[in-house]
């Protein structure tokens, strides 16, 4: 096992730039998840680590060894491909045994033992002698994982291997992979466009967008302190609420105005706006951080019900509940806010009915402020 260091990776296909300038450092035994929307360069980065792509520029090192120009077979990696890439003419056993036979330093009995052991871990025992084309999608998925996990490679790579599975199987395999990863302390790089999967699996998230890394950090940090507006909107489900505001400073008071809605900021938040580049500030609040109130905060509202208000840095938005989506013990409520905007909140199941009117309130500490409306707008607080 070893860490992976990528410096200034750039990959162009003709005039298309797949990765612009990617640098990242994955520690030995860490599970890093590259996450981002389609075309963000995450798969290109992964394939470059595998050696399946030759970088246009930049270096890749495993530990201290520069492997930038090594072919895949010299890198000691295993990989699960998005389309699985099983050997269709072989049995499950032969598929899983293939990497060991390629290594050519284990006896037949040792290979059999290793294959059977990983097959037990991933529930592949029952169809070891069946040809993989005869298997169901979920079974093939497990064979692909087993083939990759049967060896102990330096680095383990996964390219969206769970994307075609049903929810239940997806969760099961995810936790199985994480268990094996922790147990064996494998350095693992996992690529997905599914932010939920990224948060559940990763020790560390590498959020990518437009060929660049936009944020790197543990899931909590990325969730609670998104570095850019893009990250705030991409990570988290349901999606974060965003209010595009203009900054107004009057005598000692700092207000963010979004149409008819005013947010008075606490001193802390107001201070964070000192670094803002302009008047345009995007204020975001996660649906999970809103709570329901029948009436506006008591203190010094100007009586106008359409005004959001919050001294002490509390944010309040007057809304009407339109749709309630049940997600188990909680409900996602879709509300209509002032200016016709949609506001989402997550509340305990059954607390609200459609058509209810009231206020969504959040503590100022849970507000995320970004310097502009652009997706690259940086976090201010």
């Amino acid at each position: 096992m070893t860490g992976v260091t990528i410096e200034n990776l750039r990959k162009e296909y003709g005039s298309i730039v797949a990765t612009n300038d990617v640098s990242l450092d994955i520690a030995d035994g860490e599970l890093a998840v590259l996450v981002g929307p389609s075309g963000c360069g995450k798969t290109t980065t992964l394939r470059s680590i595998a050696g399946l792509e030759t970088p246009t520029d930049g270096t890749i090192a495993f530990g201290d060894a520069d492997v930038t120009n090594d072919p895949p077979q010299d890198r000691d990696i295993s990989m699960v491909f998005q389309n699985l890439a099983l050997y269709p003419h072989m049995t499950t056993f032969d598929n899983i045994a293939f990497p060991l036979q390629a290594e050519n330093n284990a006896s037949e009995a040792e290979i059999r033992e290793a294959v059977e052991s990983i097959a037990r871990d991933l529930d592949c025992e029952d169809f070891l002698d069946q040809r993989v084309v005869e298997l169901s999608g979920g079974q093939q998925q497990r064979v692909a994982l087993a083939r990759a996990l049967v060896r102990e490679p330096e680095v383990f790579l996964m390219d969206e291997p769970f994307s075609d599975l049903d929810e239940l199987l997806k969760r099961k395999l995810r936790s199985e992979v994480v268990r094996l990863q922790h147990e064996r302390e494998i350095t693992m790089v996992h690529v997905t466009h599914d932010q939920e999967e990224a948060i559940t699996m990763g020790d560390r998230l590498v959020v990518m967008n437009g060929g660049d890394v936009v944020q790197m950090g543990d899931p909590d940090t990325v969730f609670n302190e998104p570095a850019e507006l893009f990250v705030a909107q991409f990570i988290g489900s349901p999606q974060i609420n965003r209010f595009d505001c203009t900054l107004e400073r009057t005598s000692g008071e700092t207000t963010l105005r979004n149409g008819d809605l005013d947010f008075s900021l606490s001193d802390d938040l107001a201070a964070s706006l000192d670094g803002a580049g302009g008047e345009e500030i995007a204020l975001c609040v996660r649906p999970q951080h809103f709570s329901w109130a029948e009436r506006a905060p008591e203190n010094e509202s100007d009586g106008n019900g359409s005004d959001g208000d919050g001294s002490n840095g509390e944010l309040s938005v007057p809304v009407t509940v339109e749709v309630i989506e049940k997600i188990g013990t909680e409900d996602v409520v879709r509300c209509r806010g002032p200016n016709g905007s949609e506001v989402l909140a997550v509340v305990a199941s059954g607390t609200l009915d459609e058509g209810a009117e009231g206020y969504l309130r959040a503590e100022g500490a849970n507000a995320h402020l970004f310097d502009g409306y652009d997706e690259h707008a940086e976090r201010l607080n």
Partner: protein
Amino acid sequence: MSTIGENLPRAPAIKERLSNGRLIPYLLVGPTILVVFLVTIGPLLWSLWLSFTRWKPGSIAFQNPEFTGVENFVWLVTNERFIASVVNFAYYGGVGVLLQVALGTLLALALYNHVENRVLRVGLLTLFTVPMMYAPLVAGRIWQLLFLPGGGVVNGLLGTVGLTGVGWLNSRWLGLTSIMIADTWQWVGLPLLIVYGGRASLSESMYEAARVDGASRWMTFRRITFPQLRNLIVIAGLLRFMDAYKFFDKLFIMTGGGPGTATELPTYFAYLVGFQNFNIGQAAALTWVLGLGSVVTLFLFWRYMSTVQGGTN
């Protein structure tokens, strides 16, 4: 008149059958069946009958077919010239087909894997397939001239590097080999195209997986490429083998079966017996033996195919 039959339905008259449409399918298919019988099945059965007769049109003694039992077949299996021609065929068909298919496969994979430039690759593919469009006699003539002992290009080239030329077409095994080379030149494009198409249909990510798994080139070929192309290679081989079975033209133009009868193949021998000596009975017996041989070959092939059914993707 008995009353027994009275309640039985009588067979409908032809007019009635026509009008209710039951005869129409037979009328429609009838002419085709008749033609097929006249041009295929009829002559086939007639030739089977002829193989048990002595018939030499143009001679005085056997103007008409005369039944002689298995005499022709006894003549055939004791005929050294025929047996020699079968041995020649075993060499020509066996080694020649293997050579063509192996070379075609090798070229196809080399073109696919190692010629990156698309224009060059298509150009080479075309170059290898163009000879298939030559008339076999023309191709045979070209190679006969190339192989001429004196003044031929091949011996000329050998001379420039200080080697003494040989009589390429002047002995049994070398003669057959020379014909084999000419035929390979013309037909290597067929297995090449088939295998190339098969290779192009295999998933690239499977090969990426093999690289990641650390497989060497040889292991990749042996465990991944070959098993998945095996059926196509066998089909290419069968097509070439069927052609070898009826092989005639290049032999006719390049050696004429010579020197003497040394390079004769069974079909060529049959041609001589039938159309040079006009010994129709013997020729019929000979071609029936060859025909049964091809049926056995096809049977073995189908049995192989059914054992590996679904053997490709």
